[in-house]
C-alpha cells in the first residue's frame, strides 16, 4: 500500500535534492572540518556554504547560525543560555500551548525557584498581547513563544510580541520549527533574539537543528569542550546533515510561494469539503492566522484513535490531539488550553501537508474520511443520540 502522507508536522520526507547533496559526506568526503589538511578543509567550505544558505532563508547573517542536533536542543540551549546570562532574573514567560521542548523545561524551572508565567490563548488558540505586556517585568530573563503551533498551525504575532519584550530588556526566543520554510521570515527586520528550527520538519534528515542567535545577543553554550560553532555548541559537526540542512533551506526558499499558494489551496479545499460532508465539525484555530499546510479538524462524538486506525487501513497517515493515541489520558494540552469542548477534543485530527502533497491524495481523504466518521458515530452511544436528534 502506498502511503498518503499527511503528517508533515510530525516529520517530512527528505527531499531528493537534499539527499544527493549530503550523500558524498559519509563514505567519501568524511573529513573533520576542523582538520588542517585539505581533506577536512573542503568539508569546512561546504559547512560554511550551508551556514550561508540557512542564513539566507532566515534573512540572517551566517555568523548568527548555530548548528545543533535538533529543535529540542535549540529550545533548551536558548532558554538555559538566557538564565545564565541573567542569573539575577528569576522570571520566565511562555505560553500554555508550547511544544514540550519548551514547556517541560519551563515547568522544571519552577522547581528551582523560578517564577514561570504561561500565557493563555483564546478559543482560536491565539495570544493576547496585552497579557504578555502585563506579564513581562524587570525580573523577566526570557520570553519563549512559538512562531506557529504544531497541532493547529496557529501563527502567533511574534514580531509584536518581540517588540513588547525587548522594551522591557528581556531576551526573546521563538520556537519556529513549524514556521520556517512555510512562511517568510526576515531576521534583518525582526526583534527576535533567538530562533529554533529543525531539519526534519523541512525535508532535511532527522538529527540536525539550528539555533539562530542575533549578533550581540549574550550567549552561554550548553555543550562545552570544543571550539565548534564559534564556541557556542561544542562537538564535531554532523557534517552530512548540516550540509543537508543548508540545501533544504535553499530548496525551501524556492518553494515558499508554492506553500502559500498551491499547498494552501489544497488545505483549504480539504477543509471546505470535509466540513461540507461531515456534520458537526469544528476547525481548531480556524478563526485566526494559520500555517498554510495545517488543518486541525474536530469531529464530535468520535474518538481520534479509531479514526486514525481506520485512516491508516486506507494508507492515510494523519495525527490526532486525542488522549488515547499518546498513552496519556487527557486530550492534548493545546486543545485544552483553547477550551475545545470535550465532545470535540477527543475527535480532533490533524492533517499536515507538504509540497509533495498531491490533488489525488487530498481527493482520497475527502472520499475515505466521511464514511469512517459515520461508521464510528453509528457505533458511539453519543453519536447515535446525536443522529437520532437529527
Amino acid at each position: 500500500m502506498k502511503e498518503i502522507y499527511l503528517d508533515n508536522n510530525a516529520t517530512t520526507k527528505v527531499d531528493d535534492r537534499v539527499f544527493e547533496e549530503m550523500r558524498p559526506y559519509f563514505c567519501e568526503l568524511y573529513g573533520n572540518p576542523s582538520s588542517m589538511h585539505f581533506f577536512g578543509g573542503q568539508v569546512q567550505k561546504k559547512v560554511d556554504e550551508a551556514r550561508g544558505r540557512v542564513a539566507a532563508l532566515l534573512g540572517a547573517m551566517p555568523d548568527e547560525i548555530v548548528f545543533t542536533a535538533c529543535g529540542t536542543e535549540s529550545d533548551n540551549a536558548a532558554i538555559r543560555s538566557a538564565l545564565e546570562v541573567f542569573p539575577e532574573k528569576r522570571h520566565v514567560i511562555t505560553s500554555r500551548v508550547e511544544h514540550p521542548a519548551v514547556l517541560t523545561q519551563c515547568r522544571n524551572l519552577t522547581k528551582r525557584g523560578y517564577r514561570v508565567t504561561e500565557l493563555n490563548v483564546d478559543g482560536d488558540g491565539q495570544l493576547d498581547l496585552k497579557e504578555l505586556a502585563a506579564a513581562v517585568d524587570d525580573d523577566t530573563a526570557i520570553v519563549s513563544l512559538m512562531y506557529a503551533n504544531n497541532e493547529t498551525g496557529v501563527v502567533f504575532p511574534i514580531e509584536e510580541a518581540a517588540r513588547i519584550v525587548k522594551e522591557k530588556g528581556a531576551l526573546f526566543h521563538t520556537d519556529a520549527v513549524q514556521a520556517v520554510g512555510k512562511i517568510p521570515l526576515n531576521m534583518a527586520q525582526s526583534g527576535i533574539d533567538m530562533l529554533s528550527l529543525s531539519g526534519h520538519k523541512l525535508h532535511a534528515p532527522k538529527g540536525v537543528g539550528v539555533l539562530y542567535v542575533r549578533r550581540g545577543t549574550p550567549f552561554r553554550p550548553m555543550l562545552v569542550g570544543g571550539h565548534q560553532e564559534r564556541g557556542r555548541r561544542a562537538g564535531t559537526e554532523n557534517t552530512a546533515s548540516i550540509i543537508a540542512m543548508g540545501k533544504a533551506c535553499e530548496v525551501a526558499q524556492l518553494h515558499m510561494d508554492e506553500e502559500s499558494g498551491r499547498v494552501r489551496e489544497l488545505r483549504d479545499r480539504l477543509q471546505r469539503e470535509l466540513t461540507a460532508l461531515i456534520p458537526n465539525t469544528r476547525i481548531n484555530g480556524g478563526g485566526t492566522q494559520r500555517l498554510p499546510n495545517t488543518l486541525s479538524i474536530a469531529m464530535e462524538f468520535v474518538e481520534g484513535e479509531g479514526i486514525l486506525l481506520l485512516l491508516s487501513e486506507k494508507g492515510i497517515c494523519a495525527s490526532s490531539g486525542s488522549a488515547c493515541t499518546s498513552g496519556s489520558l487527557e486530550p492534548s494540552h493545546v486543545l485544552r488550553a483553547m477550551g475545545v469542548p470535550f465532545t470535540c477534543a477527543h475527535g480532533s485530527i490533524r492533517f499536515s501537508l507538504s509540497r509533495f502533497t498531491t490533488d489525488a491524495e487530498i481527493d482520497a481523504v475527502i472520499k475515505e474520511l466521511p464514511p469512517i466518521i459515520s461508521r464510528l458515530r453509528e457505533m458511539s452511544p453519543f453519536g447515535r443520540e446525536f443522529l437520532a436528534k437529527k
Partner: protein
Amino acid sequence: MWDYTDKVKEHFLNPRNVGEIADADAVGEVGSLACGDALKLFIKLDEKKERIVDAKFQTFGCGSAIASSSALTEMVKGKTLDEALGVTNQEIADFLGGLPEEKMHCSVMGQEALEVAIAKYRGVEAPKHGHDHVETEGEIVCKCFGLTDLFLKKVIASNKLHTAEQVTHFTKAGGACGGCIPKIKELIAEVMGEEKKVARERPTKLTNLKKMQLIQETLENEIRPQLWADGGDLELIDIDGPNVQVAFRKACAGCASSGYTAKFVEQKLREMVSDDIVVQEVQG
C-alpha cells in the same frame, strides 16, 4: 503506534454485535464523553431469564475500547448471569490476545458495564465504580475521573497491581492532574500488604567520624547530581565541627546565584545530617 495484537485489530475493524437491543432485559452504561471513553451494553435473556442469548454494544472510544466491547459481547453469550459476572477484565484482555498495559482500562470498562447491567436487571444497587462520575459509597480518590477508593482497591487486588503507573493504566486514576498518586500508592500498600517504606530516619547521635562520612555521602549522592544537571559542581574542602566548607566548580563557580546554591546545600545537609550545619563557600 500501539502494538495491538491481530485479534484486537480484527475486533476493531470488524466489531461483533454493534448496535442496540430494543427489548433488552438489561442495559449497562459506563463512562462519559469527558472521560474519553464510554460503553453502553445491552443484554437479552432467554425465556426462562437464565441465560444470555444476545448482547450488543455501543462504544465511544479508542481501538482497544471497541475491540474490548466486541470481545465482551462474544464472551457473555450463552452464559448465565452469574457466569457472566465471573468474567474478569483480564479474561477480556486474554480473549484479545492481550492489550497494551496502557489500554487495560478499556477491558475494565467492559467488565464494569456488565456489572452495572446485571445489577440493574436484578434490581439491586449497581456496583460503584465512580467511573461514570456518580458520587457513591467510598471516598473519591481520583477527582479528575471520579474514582473511589473501593473501586481502585478492587482493581488493584484482582489484577495484582504494584505501581501507581499500573493503576493509571488500568483505571485512568492519576492520569490527568496526578494529584492522587500518593493516595494511590497508599492504597496499593494497603491492598498488597506492603509495609510502607519507613522514611529514612536521621541518626540522632553522631560521632565526628560518622558525621563526616554522612556529609560526604549526602554531597555525593544527593547534592552534586543536582548541580551537575545544571552544569555546575562543588568540591568539599574541609569539615570543621558544624562548619562545612565547599568550593563551587564549573557553572557554579562565579555564578551570581551561588549564594542561593550554598543555601540549598546547607538545607539539604541539615535535613540529612544535622541541624547545626553551616555551609561556607570558599575559594579553593
